Structures are given as C-alpha cells and as structure tokens.
C-alpha cells in the first residue's frame, strides 16, 4: 500500500477518535496492524501476522484485516503461510466472498514441488467449507490422492472425509469414495490407516450408503498394516476390526492371534482397543481353552494401565468395571492393585473403591475390610462415606464377613464424628435387613449415638430399626416419642418411617401405645403437607379401625431380603457397553444414544451425575431389581420394604 493511503488511514484514526473513543481504540490497533501488514519489511509483516493470530486467539475480531492478511499469502516462509491459512480457516465462514481471492494460491501450492506444501494446501482447503472452494478443490484433490508422496496421500484421504462432510454429492460424483477405497491397498501403512479413518467417518455419517464394508481379505490387509502404522492408526484399525463379524471361528481365532501383541503397546488406548477386540471375539471363537488363555493375557496389561496418568487411569478403571461384570475371572486375584494411594485424585479413588468391592470374596475380605477401615479414617467426607457404604456392601455380599463388618461399624460409631455416624447407621440398617434377628445385640450401642443423628436418611434408618425391633426394645416408645416432637418439620422419609414404626409398636404393645398411635396419625393426616405422609397415615388408620388382625398380617409381614447381584448392570446394557469399550459411553456407563443426541441442554453433566441419572432411570425400564443395590441405592431409606402397604405404594409409582 502506498504511503498516501497510510496517511489517509492515520487521518481516519483521527476521525474515529473524535467520534467514539472505545471503538476507536479497537480500530486503532487494527489500523496499526494493517499498516504493519503492508510494510515493506518482511520481518515487520511477519510480526504483524503473528499479532493478528494472537488477537484472533483471545477472541478479538480481526476479520477486517482479511485482504491485508491475504496479501502476505504469497510467501516462501512456511511459518507465515501456515498462520495465514489458520486465519483463513477461522474467517472463511464469515467472509466467503473473500476466500475466493485465496484460491489461486491454494491451487498453485497443490502443485508445489515440496510435498509438505502440497499437503498443507490440500489440508487447509478441506477445512474452508465454502461452496466456491469446493469446485476448485476437486481437481487438486484428485491429483493428491495419487501423489507420489505418501504424506500427501494420507492428507488427501482425510480431505475426502472433509469434503464429504460439506458436499456428499460432489464427493460421490467425482469418484473420490472409490479413490479412497483404493488407498486401502496402498503400500504405506499410514495412508491405509487414514483411508480407514476417512471411510469409517463417512460410513458413520451415512450408514446406509455401504461405503465401507469389511470382508475377509480387507480385514487381513488391515491387520497386516497394524504392525507398521502409528499408534493412532492402530487404534483406528482395531476399532474397525472390533466392529467386524468374522465369518468363521478360524477367522476369528486368526484375528485374535494378530491382535494379542497389541496388548504390549505403550499407548493405553491401543491396549484398551485390543482388549475390546478380544472381548468381542470371545463370542465368535468356539474354544474355551483359547478364550481363557487370551483372558489371562489381558490381566497384566490392564493392571499396568493403573500406573498411567490419572485421567487415563480413570477411563481404564471405568472400563475395567465393565469388563469385570462380564468376566470376573480376569482380575479376580488382583484386588490389591486397586488399593487407593493417599494422593490419588478422588475420581480415581471412587472407581478403585467400587472395583475393590466387586473383587471382594470369602477369601480376601479380611484385606478388603482392613483397607476400607483405613479409608473410613481419612478426612475427605465424600470418600469416607463411600468407604463406609462399601463396608456395608461387603457385609451383604459376603455373608462370612458380616460379623467383622459390624465390628468395624461399631468402631466407627465410637468415633462420634458426625458424618461417619450418619453413614454407619444407614449401613447398619442395611445389614439388619440382610441378616434379620442376628445383630440386634448392638442396638443399645446404636442408641448411644442418637443425639448425633441429624440427617433425614439416617433418622429414617434409625427409626426403621427401632420399629422393626420394638418387641426387644423396652423403651421403644420413649425413643419414638422423642422423634415425634418435631414431626411437622421432618423430611417426608422420616415421617413415613415414624408412622410405620409407631404402628408396629402399637401392634406389638397395643395397651400402652394407643394414645401415641392416635397422635401420630392425627398429626400426619391433619398437619402434614406431604401427600405421601397423609396417604400412608389414612391407610394405616383405616386398616387399624376396620380389621386390626389384617393390620397385623400386613404390617408385620416378612420382608424380602435385599440382594447383591443386582449391583451389576442389566445384561443387555452391559453387552452394549462392552461393545463401546474405551469410548465415552463406557466412561459414563450409559449407551451413546442417552447423551449423543442431546442438543439444547446446557446443564452441567459430569460423569458422576450421569451415572446417577442412569440409576434413577432404570427401575422403569427394566424389571430386574437392579436399582435396589448399587452402592447408592443399597443405602436408600427402607420404605420400599418397610411394610407391605408401602411396598405396594412404591410399585404403583414405579409402574
């Protein structure tokens, strides 16, 4: 640009300052950049381009400099060229008409004798997504797909996927799909893996086109490339092979044999992808010997993943959690490796805790419980509570360990630390449900903690225990009476439990408790806001007034014991998730359709909250009692089995 125009720009600045100071300041920098971009000195132009990109990064609008930036595109300096291309990618959408000015340079670059520049040009053109560019892209792309340099070919393969994303029809018309299919037979492994990547991507966006169909010779070719291509290419190929259904058991065995060495790869995601293939193919090989041999080989690499970076560990642990539910044998002897380190991040600790409990059995529960007790003495509240829950879970899962668990829980009660006591009481209630009439000897000890109990769930649990064991607690009426004082202010769960407990008390000792039961039913029906509470109170009232005998059989009926195997995911969901190993779905333990299609939602969803969302949803979708006993649900307050009428209530709601 001539000096006179620079001068006129300077006067422009003057005018701008006069009109609006704020905008002028912003403009001021752009004007300064513009003059620098047009500087006669190469260094200053280069600096200016860098500053433009820096501004772009922090979100300042530098699109006004489009033409000036473009002028610098004809350069020998690769660094500048790349920065300008970056600028183009960024602003092509808002200034499509100006991108056309750059086309010539691009087309020229695709003919450059340097393969790096050819690849750069074709890579960038693919990212521009401007319809005018597409027409100009076809010829160079065709050439680059057949380029002598594998580097250009592998870039061109991905470019086809980019093109298909904007203009599928053009891609097909120009025969690019078949050109990429041909690249599957390329001599260079990286070209093959990028061609696979491109085809998988295209196939995923339009599955009905059948652009990428696997057949035995092709799978063979891919597996042959597996040894030589980069780790990322290996992942692509393994993912592809995992989705393939082999024609015969022999073919499946062959694939497994060639995939097994990948377990030794240093990249954790290669290892997980290989595990995925093997688990998948277990269904196809009809050979238990080979299957258990392969399973044995998986153990050490999975354990090794635990020494990787915490985030990779987290993904691995979530996956291991799934794998364990399908094949508990793989890590059955390795419980100790899941012991938490003091400085593990919490999200890793939670997963380890869950897996440790899964691996617990009659033989190793001593170690497990010693470890859990250790965790219960730490200071992070959430982690401590999870550890205590785990103790309860262990007691329910492993009958032999219940005695020991109870002792640990009593120790914990003795600490009189608020949150420890809250959780321990809830857990003790669950153990009571599993082993009725076995540990009621500890109730006096439990009662000593009554003044610490302040959380609704804990109160509900405590009241349930009192109600359940009224015949053996002499002062049960006093205890329940004490809770009656604030009846109106209590949570609905507590109110429900209190009503049930008082009715139980009345049925056992009708003579002295008539007044109490009337009072509770009256308060509940007349002064409570919660419809559930009122409903239940009316229900009891009617039963008691019409047929006390029926009340006896209904309220004091035997309760179903709680089970443990429901800790697992439903079989069909588990199988689906095993097919999604290493992916986000396997981290969330949720099928992809649950989170992929969501478009408008903006609320915070993290791995943990998604997992809990899954649990709350499930009871409706599957008939199994699965929701009852995952660690979270296991400890939910007991209304569902507290008494028969309540059970019916809950069933009605669930239906």
């Amino acid at each position, binding site marked *: 640009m001539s000096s006179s125009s620079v001068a006129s720009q300077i006067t422009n600045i003057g005018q701008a300052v006069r009109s609006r100071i704020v905008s002028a300041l912003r403009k001021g920098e752009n004007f300064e950049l513009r003059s620098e971009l047009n500087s006669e000195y190469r260094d200053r132009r280069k600096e200016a381009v*860098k500053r433009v*990109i*820096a501004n772009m*990064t*922090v979100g300042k609008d530098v699109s006004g400099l489009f033409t000036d930036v473009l002028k610098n595109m004809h350069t020998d*300096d*690769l*660094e500048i060229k790349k*920065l300008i291309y*970056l600028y183009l*990618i*960024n602003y092509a959408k808002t200034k499509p008409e100006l991108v056309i000015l750059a086309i010539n340079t691009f087309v020229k670059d695709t003919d450059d004798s*340097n*393969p*790096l520049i050819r690849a750069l040009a074709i890579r960038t053109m693919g*990212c521009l997504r401007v319809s005018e560019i597409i027409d100009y892209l076809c010829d160079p792309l065709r050439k680059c797909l057949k380029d002598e*340099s594998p580097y250009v070919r*592998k*870039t061109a393969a*991905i470019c086809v996927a*980019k093109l298909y994303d904007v203009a599928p029809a053009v891609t097909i018309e120009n025969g690019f799909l078949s050109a990429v299919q041909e690249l599957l037979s390329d001599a260079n492994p*990286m*070209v093959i893996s*990028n061609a696979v990547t491109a085809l998988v*991507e295209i196939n995923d966006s339009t599955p009905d086109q059948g652009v990428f169909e696997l057949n035995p010779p092709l799978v063979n070719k891919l597996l042959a490339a597996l*040894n030589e291509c*980069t*780790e*990322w290419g290996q*992942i*692509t190929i393994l993912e592809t092979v995992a989705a393939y259904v082999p024609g015969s058991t022999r073919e499946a065995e062959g694939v497994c044999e060639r995939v097994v*060495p990948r377990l*030794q*790869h*240093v990249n954790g*995601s290669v290892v997980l992808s290989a595990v995925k293939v093997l688990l998948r193919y277990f269904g196809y090989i009809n050979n238990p010997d080979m299957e258990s041999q392969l399973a044995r080989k998986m153990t*050490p690499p999975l*354990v*090794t993943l635990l020494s990787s970076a915490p*985030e990779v560990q*987290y993904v691995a642990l979530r996956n291991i959690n799934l794998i364990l539910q399908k094949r508990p044998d793989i890590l059955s002897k390795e419980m*100790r490796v899941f*012991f938490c380190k*003091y*400085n593990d*991040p919490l999200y890793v600790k939670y997963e380890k805790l869950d897996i440790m409990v899964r691996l617990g059995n009659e033989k190793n529960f001593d170690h497990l419980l*010693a470890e859990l007790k*250790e965790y219960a003495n*730490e*200071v992070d509240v959430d982690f401590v509570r999870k550890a205590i829950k785990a103790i309860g879970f262990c007691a329910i899962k492993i009958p032999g360990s219940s005695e020991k668990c109870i002792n640990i829980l009593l120790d914990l009660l003795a600490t009189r630390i608020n949150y420890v006591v809250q959780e321990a009481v809830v857990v003790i209630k669950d153990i009571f449900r599993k082993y009725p009439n076995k540990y009621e000897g500890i109730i006096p000890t439990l009662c000593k903690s009554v003044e610490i109990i302040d959380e609704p769930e804990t109160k509900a649990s405590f009241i349930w225990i009192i109600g359940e064991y009224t015949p053996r607690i002499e002062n049960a009426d006093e205890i329940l009476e004490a809770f009656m004082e604030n009846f109106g202010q209590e949570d609905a769960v507590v109110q429900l439990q209190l009503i049930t407990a008082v009715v139980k008390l009345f049925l056992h000792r009708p003579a002295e408790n008539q007044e109490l039961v009337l009072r509770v039913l009256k308060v509940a029906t007349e002064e409570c806001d919660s419809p559930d509470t009122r409903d239940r109170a009316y229900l009891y009232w009617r039963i008691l007034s019409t047929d006390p005998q029926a009340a006896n059989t209904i309220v004091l009926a035997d309760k179903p014991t709680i089970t443990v195997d429901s800790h697992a995911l439903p079989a069909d969901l588990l199988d689906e998730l095993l097919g999604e190993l290493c992916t*986000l*779905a396997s*981290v969330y333990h949720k099928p*992809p359709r649950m989170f*992929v299609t*969501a478009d408008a939602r*903006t609320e*915070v969803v*993290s*791995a943990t909250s998604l997992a809990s969302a899954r649990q709350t949803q499930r009871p409706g979708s599957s008939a199994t009692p699965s929701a009852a006993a995952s660690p979270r649900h296991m400890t939910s307050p007991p209304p569902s089995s507290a008494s028969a009428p309540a059970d019916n209530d809950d069933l009605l709601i669930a239906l």
Partner: protein
Amino acid sequence: MLSGFFIFNQKGEILISRLYRHDVKRSAADIFRIHVIANPDVRSPVVTLGPVTYYHVRHENLYLVAATRGNTNAALVFETLYRIGELGVSYFTRFDEESVKNNFALIYELLDEVLDFGYPQNMDPDTLKLYITTEEVKSDRSIQDASSRITMQATGAISWRRNDIKYRKNEAFIDVIESVNLLMSTKGTVLRADVSGQIVMRAYLSGTPECKFGLNDRLLTDQDNGGGGNNASGTGRSGAQRRGGTDASANDTVEIADCKFHQCVRLGKFESERTISFIPPDGEFELMSYRTTENVNLPFRVQPVVTEVGRTRIEYQIQVKANFSPKLYASNVTIRVPTPLNTSGTTIRVTGGRAKYVPAENCIVWKLQRFQGLTENMLTAEAELTSMTVERRWSRPPISMDFNVLMFTSSGLLVRFLKVFEKSNYQSVKWVRYMTKAGSYQIRLAAPSGSVTADEGGKGGQGKVEVS
C-alpha cells in the same frame, strides 16, 4: 476424534484455540471456562455440557482441553492430550504459560500437523522436529529433497529412523531405571509392592542396525538356556556387585508381569518367540517399560512408632534400614514424616543426615546424602501442638520416601545381552547402568486407637521383603 483443542492458563484465560471440526464453536471455550475452571466442584476430568464433551488434563499451570461431540474414544483423547503435553516439553523444555505465550505460532503449527480433522497423525517429537522448527523454514530448492525425504520418513514403516546415520564410534548405552512402589499398612505388612521399570537406550549406531536384546526374563530363559555370548559389557560386573558377591545362578531370573515396548520393537515377534528385536531410533529413547510384582527387593524398610501424648504432643520414632548390599549406597534419601496441621514446634534428633520441620508442607523433612547398605538410621522427634478451638481431624498422611540407589534393581532384573547386526558388520560397544529410585513409597501411620503394632507387624512383613 477431537473437534477442538484449547489451552487455558490457571485463571481461565485462553492461550491457544484451534478448531478442527465445525460441530464445535469457539464459544465452547467460554463454556468450559465458566463451568469447569471456575467451578471447584467439578472433579471429573470428563464433563459433558450440552452436546459438547470436554476432556481436560493439567500440565504445569495449564489446562489442556479437548472438546468433542458424540461418543468419542475417551482413552484416545486423553492419550492425545498427554502427548501434546509431552510434545510441548520436548520442544520448549518447560511447557507452561510463558512458553506457550512466547511460542504460540509454533504451537499452532504443531497443532496443525499432529491432528487433521481431529484425528491424531504423527506425534513423534523427533520426526516432527525434522520439519517443524523454531528456525525459519524456506521452501527453496535446497531443502526440497530433504522435504520429500522427511515426508517419506514421517509416514514410512520405519518412521523413527533416517537411513543415512553415520558414527565413527558405534556405541549403545542402556539405562535400567526402576521405580519401586510400596504401600505399607499401619500394621507393617506390605499391601502392595511393585516395580515399574524403564529401559532407556541411547543408540549411536550407524546405518540400519538390527538389534536383539535379552533380559533375565523367566519366561524367556525357560525357553532357551544360556543367554547368548555377546554379553553387554558391564553386565557381569554390575550383576555381581548388585548381588553383593553371590554368584548369579540359573534361577536368578525375574518374572515380568507386563511390559510395553517402543514403537520400533516387533510386537509380533515378542508374542511368538519372546525375543526383543528392533531397529532403534537414533539417540535416546525408551526401549521398553515393564512391571514386576514378584520378589520385590525393597531397598528400605521403615518402622514408624508414632504416639500421641495427650492432645498437645506427638512423639515420633522412625527407624529406617537399608536392605541392600553394604557395597552399595543410596543417595539423595529424603523421608517426609507428616505432622498435624496445628504443630507449633518440634524437637528432632537424628543419627544421620539432617532433619527439619517444614511448616509449609506440614511435615518433618529428613535428608540423608548418603545411606550405606545394611546400615540403619533413626529419627526421634517430638511435635508440640497448639490447642484448637474447633477440633479438626488430622488425616494422617503416610510417610513418604525418596531415594536413588545406583547399580541396584529392586526387581532383580539384569540385561543379559544386546546384539547389534548391521550390513557393514561393525564392532559396537555397549554399556549398562542400573538405578532404582522411589516411585510412590508410602508407609501408613497407625491411627491413634490402634496402638503401636509396628513391632509385631514388622515380622509379618519381613518375610516378604527379605532378600533371597
């Protein structure tokens, strides 16, 4: 695949933003800043906000963030993020806010190269350094040949090695570096002890050398007896020294639980014959990493006795024994003994080295420059506690230890041989070095109620760690 990649600083300011696909917008970065960086409640490294899923890792004072849509390969995304971090370290030695700001143009260049349409491409720093450099690269004639050669290498089957390397003296250095991890219970029993080792090789070899590498791996030695003649120099000596003079018997093998290899090692061959054969990259690289869990020789044994005297005083008696040959010694031994948060002062006595109370870390740091094998040292200390209005629990962090022991491997691993075959048949010299350092070496402190059981428990653990 990644739809976008961002780098943030601690404060949540965006330093680098690169979008690879059009399904994620630039504003995604703001959403991440608001909902993750500014929200201390988010603990998970994976967060889905609306349709976009964010993966992040921390590197120094940076957040490296990948934004993706759909059901992406989570393991791959994290590996990629870590690899970008490593790449940064390889290019700028320190990869922090300052170096990102100073080199942002180069970082954009790298990002353009390592990911295409969100799919990871070549991320090997050595290869990338051939054509992405801090110096100005011009596309003139002289380097065009070089470019086509580079691109061949970047995509080729042996992408890690040029074929025109020449050295006057052909040498290979092998470093066996082991990190020994220990988790000892409050009772003094070993909960977990394992070794994660790496074998780092510095190869200065001409041409295209075909290497074969042998260890005292139990599975391999079961297959063929006799490790091969071309023993690496230094192996014998160090082996003898490490064992403190005992002759290395045929049983002296190591059971490797798992191992991982550098890209250059032929995994198929390892699977079928359990031999490690490869064409090495030029210069330094990690040939393999491994893990052993059996017969771990713990170099140090720590016996802590911690007693709380009332509410205002804690007494420590920490005994540390070196469990390796007296001919060897450990250097840079650091033992961190945690103290409660309300410690007001300490009196410390040690039989060796120096110890002082570091209030910022809430621990007594005990340093010994040199710790001879089979000797022991003792720390006795008292910590005075101030009384607190609100009783806060002390989490009793474990005692942790740091050390280096040269010419000692906790796993007992030895390099048996390294054979080099090359067309020109040159002689090569090989060197081996062993070192064991502390990984996560933690000894838990007993809770106050569980009185001092270290003595009795110590015996239980002893059997496990005794050097056979």
